[in-house]
């Protein structure tokens, strides 16, 4: 987990422009490099300014640290900046802290990159400079995005110097990507992505060319996995793995990992085994689909698909009920009239769809009686430790998703973390956690006499 208190994030657009006489000629590369060199000079010049969003604070990082607010000086700790920032909800910071059940992670300070056009070095009046050779005029906005993790007592000045260095490095990385993927006068926009890697690497930024899918960037990722000594069997650097900043909302509106707001049960001698990474909560009535009473397994399957998408294993979107049904027809498991029906599916169908649409294999675990589930602690614990994927469980007339267990190897005591797809309300975290739609259940939760099938999806070995 992150040990830092703050993430300073600086974003800004710098326009890359150059004129190429002959895009396929030998000269063009040096013209492009010269333009990037000019941009790097711009970023180390006295004219750059960082403005802190939602605050009156302006900082000139390249003039021996000047700020528009007297009390912020070079010696100021970076935490001092918080008092100047207006929070969006308008409420004071104190009251919102009481509501949070858990600490929500580092505070993000958003900054914007600007350039001063006043206070120029000279005062020569303008001229028109005309070049009348035929040229290819290239313009491209570079979406600069630098992030720095720091502790509260770090000096603000050090943070700003660090950000300027990061800008420089990012421009160099962007130049490399632009040159590598350029074809004549066709340029791809270089886009930065942030990734939270295991310590000591921490928060890093990688520049990828826009429009080139992850599947074509395998070699780049292999290099980076080697460089950062990352395991070679799971993805860390696909675009979907990009770090989600704590203050950013998810545009699709689904809740992410509602379980983190819960306190696990306190069982003596027991250990916690949880799903790894990020999933979205899918349940009845979402997406304007009325599947109340028949869609629970479909929703559990959607939750699992969302996990594979957000961990970077697949780029396909979470499938709709229709797409799930069509997949089963395509593999020959169902007749064509299955599509558009309200028929239930079970773990076997879930396994088939995961294979057909996502290329993911799953293990099936059969339990002849619900009461036996209490004895499956070791298997489930192992699953969450090695694969860490959500588990779909179907039996009786219901389907659920298991997100983790608390299990004692000695006493055998067990509790299950359940995500319930039968919820029909809106994306209200408070209701979902208070009413147990995502909650810890004991072995009595299961129908003691019904038989159950569990689908345990396996992580593909890829990066």
């Amino acid at each position, binding site marked *: 987990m992150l040990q830092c208190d703050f993430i300073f994030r600086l974003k800004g657009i710098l326009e890359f422009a150059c004129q190429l006489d002959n895009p396929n000629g030998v000269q063009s590369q040096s013209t492009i490099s010269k333009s990037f060199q000019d941009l790097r000079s711009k970023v180390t010049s006295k004219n750059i300014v960082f403005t802190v969003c939602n605050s009156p604070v302006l900082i000139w990082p390249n003039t021996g640290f000047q700020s528009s607010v007297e009390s912020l000086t070079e010696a100021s700790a970076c935490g001092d900046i918080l008092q100047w920032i207006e929070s969006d909800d308008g409420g004071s910071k104190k009251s919102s802290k009481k509501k949070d059940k858990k600490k929500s992670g580092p505070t993000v300070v958003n900054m914007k990159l600007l350039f001063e056009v006043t206070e120029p070095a000279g005062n*020569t009046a303008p001229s028109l*400079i005309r070049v*009348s050779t035929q*040229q290819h005029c290239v313009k491209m906005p570079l979406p600069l995005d630098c992030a720095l993790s720091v502790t509260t007592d770090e000096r603000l000045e050090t943070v700003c110097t660090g950000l300027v260095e990061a800008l420089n490095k990012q421009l160099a990385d962007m130049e490399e990507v632009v040159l590598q993927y350029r074809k004549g006068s*066709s340029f791809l926009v270089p886009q930065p992505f942030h990734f939270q890697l295991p310590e000591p690497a921490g928060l890093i930024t990688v520049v990828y060319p*826009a429009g080139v899918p992850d599947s074509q960037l395998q070699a780049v990722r292999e290099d980076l996995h080697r460089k950062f000594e990352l395991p070679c069997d799971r993805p860390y650097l696909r675009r979907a793995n990009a770090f989600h900043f704590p203050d950013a909302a998810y545009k699709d509106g689904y809740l992410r990992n509602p379980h983190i707001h819960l306190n696990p049960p306190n069982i003596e001698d027991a250990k916690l085994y949880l799903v790894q990474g990020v999933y979205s909560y899918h349940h009845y009535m979402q997406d304007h689909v009325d599947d109340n009473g028949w869609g629970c397994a479909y929703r559990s399957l959607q939750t699992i698909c969302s996990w594979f998408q957000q961990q970077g294993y697949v780029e396909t979107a979470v499938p709709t009920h229709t797409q799930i049904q069509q997949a089963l027809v395509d593999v020959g498991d169902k007749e064509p009239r299955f599509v558009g029906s309200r028929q239930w599916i079970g773990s076997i169908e879930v396994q088939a769809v995961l294979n057909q649409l996502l290329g993911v294999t799953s293990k099936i675990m059969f339990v002849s009686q619900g009461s036996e589930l209490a004895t499956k602690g070791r298997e489930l614990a192992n699953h969450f430790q090695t694969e860490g994927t959500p588990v779909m469980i179907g039996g009786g007339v219901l389907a659920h998703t298991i997100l983790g267990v608390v299990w004692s190897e000695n006493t055998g005591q067990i509790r299950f973390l359940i995500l319930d797809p039968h919820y029909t309300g809106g994306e209200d975290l408070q209701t979902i956690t208070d009413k147990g739609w995502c909650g810890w259940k004991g072995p009595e939760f299961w129908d003691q006499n019904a038989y159950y099938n569990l689908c345990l999806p396996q992580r593909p070995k890829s990066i």
Partner: protein
Amino acid sequence: MGRSYFVDEAVEEYLVGIQTAPGSCVTGLLAGQSSPQRDFVVLAVQTPHRESEGQPKASRGVSPLDDIDVEWVTEHAKQVSRMLPGGLCILGLFLVTPPELSKDAQNALKRLIFAMDKYITKGRLWELSEEDVTDQVTLHICSKTKKTVCKTFDVKDPKSSAKPADWKYQTGVSSSWPMLSCSVAVDVQIPMTGSSSDITDKCMKDGLRRWAKQIEAACCLINGRHALDDSELVSGQKKNPKTTHRQTLPARIFVSDEQAELDERSSALVQLCSGSVKVRGVVHCRAYIHNNKPKARHAAQAIKRDIINTVCSRVEMFLEDLLINEGSHKGLCSGQQALPRRVFAPVPVSGLSVCDYMFPDESTADVAERLKEMLDCKTPEEDIDTSLEGNQLFSNVCGSEITESPSDDSSKHVFSEVQTENPKNQKAPQYYAGVAITAAVALLATATSLLYFNE
């Protein structure tokens, strides 16, 4: 409930002092600043006499009102609006008529005011905001009784009818108005898709409009404070009617390269161009803001508009000049050409600055002549401040190759031609010392630079 115009006493003096030939009319401009609550008039200028080209025209219409040269009035208005710094603009027109023409005066004024607004706002690079006042004032003065009738028209509404307005004289209307000032580095790269003057004009306009949008969206500090939301402009000076000290507030402007339509792309925008034009240099800008509880963001808007206007005006003037001199077939030539530079001069009594643009071959004498002609004010040459924008140290050159380096403006560039006369003054062009001597050197250097520039 009509608008209220607070008019400086100096304007009253000027209007009262206008001489009219018996039976004839005099038109003129009124300039100042509008704010949502009230308007301030600080300057009045009568339309200068147009030099007749050949025989005097016979009276065309039934009355002298029909003889008013609408084209000339609007052209004068355009020239004057270029001479006003930020915050100040043309607010309307006045018309002095003999008593017998008074009843037809309103129609004449209405025609004029709509024509003038249309002409002045053509080619403007910034858009009016919702808060901008779109009323223009028309003032009719009877030459015999000196009685005034003041009405306003909403020039954005073609069906607008005359609304009554208050016209009040006051001393020192603008004496405590703070003046914002800054120098702005301009560096705009504009691709040219053709070389005819029509295409050049369009490309220049498009390129400058993009730049103007950046300035409009820019972050602005006035006197060290953010000019945001509804906060009042705090000039740090207690309002005391006795003090006539005018505060100068430094403004700082911060831009970003963000352009919404470009940012969604995944690849670069590439245009095949027949060339490009760069506008590069430093402009000095000023804006006035009234001191009746002004908002900081209005002050910021005033200085930003001045920045945009001054660049746009001088490019327009340069291109107009080219068109007149060279004809429409030539367009811009290669190389570096100086745009006219901005000079400032104080208006008598109020002390407000007005500005003018000096072509490289002109002097302060030319500026003084124009100030007299366009603004009807006598300004001693020594009061004309030419120090705010630096002289470009070369004469206009065509056909030479130019090395581009960011801060290069020295006389490394050689010249082989000199700018021909411009129509503003009919004097012979002035030569820079040493041109004749270095012509031989020029030929040699051009040959050398051509060698290095061929790929």
